[in-house]
């Protein structure tokens, strides 16, 4: 599983970091940082984060 974030539309709302804190976090500058290849066991969390993104900027690639 690979996570892709479209940074041209990401607006740093941070909802993904609430939904899947083990994959996404907001750094001290308020910008998104994330694990590109999370463990497959975290699939459900990753989907929750993609669902929660207000800009729908997160794609999960198998």
């Amino acid at each position, binding site marked *: 599983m690979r996570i892709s974030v479209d940074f*041209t539309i990401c607006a740093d*709302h*941070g909802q993904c*970091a*609430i939904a899947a804190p083990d994959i996404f976090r907001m750094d*001290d500058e308020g910008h998104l940082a994330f694990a590109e290849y999370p463990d497959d066991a975290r699939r459900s969390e990753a989907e929750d984060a993609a669902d*929660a993104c207000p800009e729908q900027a997160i794609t999960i690639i198998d």
Partner: protein
Amino acid sequence: MAHPSTAGHVVIAGAGLGGLRAAEQLRAAGHAGPLTVIGAEPHLPYNRPPLSKELLAHELPGAGPGGSANGQDGNAQRGIGQRGNGETATAELAVLHERIAFRRRASVADVGFRLGTAIVAADLDGRRLSLGDGATVGFDGLVVATGLRPRRLGVPGPAGPGSGRHVIRTLDDCLELRADLRAQLQSPRAPRVVVVGGGFVGCEVACTVSALGCDVTVIEPAGPPMLRVLGDELATAIQRHHERAGIRFLTGVSVLAYTGLGHTGLGHAPLDHTALDLTGPDHARGRRVTGVVVGDSAEPGGTEPAATDIPGGPISGGPALAGAVLPADIVVEAVGSVPNTEWLAGTGLDISDGVLVDNSLAAIPGTTSTAAGGTLVVAVGDVARFPNPLFDDIPRRVEHWSMPTDTARRAAATLVGRLAGAVEDTGPFGPIPSFWSDQGELRLQSFGSPALADDIRLAEGDPGEPRAGLLAEYYRGGRNVGSVAVNLPPSRQRELRAALAAATATAV
């Protein structure tokens, strides 16, 4: 999760975010039977929040890179010029829809979408739906996800297509407002936009069109914007901020009527008395709005207005304003929403305000419905009125973007359980409400239910400078029930949400 695999035809009424999430969650919960999503709009599910913000401004004259969701991506945007013919409008619709369409999970690739057709009646006992096109659709389980539509002001004046009066709920609404803005922005004079309603959507639209160069006035009878949710101190601080950014607020007054083209020319001149015959046939459809007649909010539709011009600058309301006419080239009404539940009339379900459901999102059968009819209906999203044990046992509708996703998960588990004949006890459903609102330079982020508070404390920041960051905490009976952060770093959100989760956890 060890859910049983269920068959049977589940119909999802509504093709918005809630309908899509319901389909995905039904599959995730083990439903293997056919799924049909029926939507009144002709479009596949799309994301609504951008309609009042980046999508509204996208590539309009005056929109900088910041006014667009994506200033760098030139590819998909070619063809959205300044022409206004039908072909271009169709191309624009396709391009804009593509920008906000939800991706659909592979698990829902086989879901049938019947779009552009509203459901007009339901027979829950017979398990049949009647559609607007005359078709009948049977079901074994039903998900109500028909959402809301904008409330409209029933005041005299021009109305309907071409009148310059707009709402923002659907992609089509957004396109109509964009077309009007595009035409008005060609004028050498800044278009005068009046936003009726100072809630979250009204404020977002006001900020968006102000950034495009429009001269914007927000009319709100209740007081400072977003007052009911934010409370006076924060609402006033945000109003002052928006005023400094050039948006005028007219508070404490209501809209009595709209004036139309032919009465006041371009709307600059004071009205003569004949112009205020607001009930005559001259206000038939097809006429264009030129002004907004405002009056004391304590007397909606009260005394005959006397013509007065409204001077520029911030104005506080009061009787002196009664009958004043605010010139307007475009009006956007953002005065709340009405649940789309008329099609459930006569089913026995309680549709007095959305669909009344229990904490598992199952519709509560009414006195005239059989148990069999009622128990196979669940509701999701902003149309579902459910009790949230984080706060109390009072069922409420929640019009937040996070709610369709949260409720769809629970509703799907409930429906699959009922279809399998095994009702699972999955514990109380207590989602933490959450919303954000982007308004110009301000970003509001809320957790919990601030509107329930009886005590509001400004915990951080200077109300004179919301841009630098504010935090308000909301209490009811001494217990924290919500927080609203303005321009705080997103890295603070987990902490704010966790604090609220801890404070409300004892109630579950």
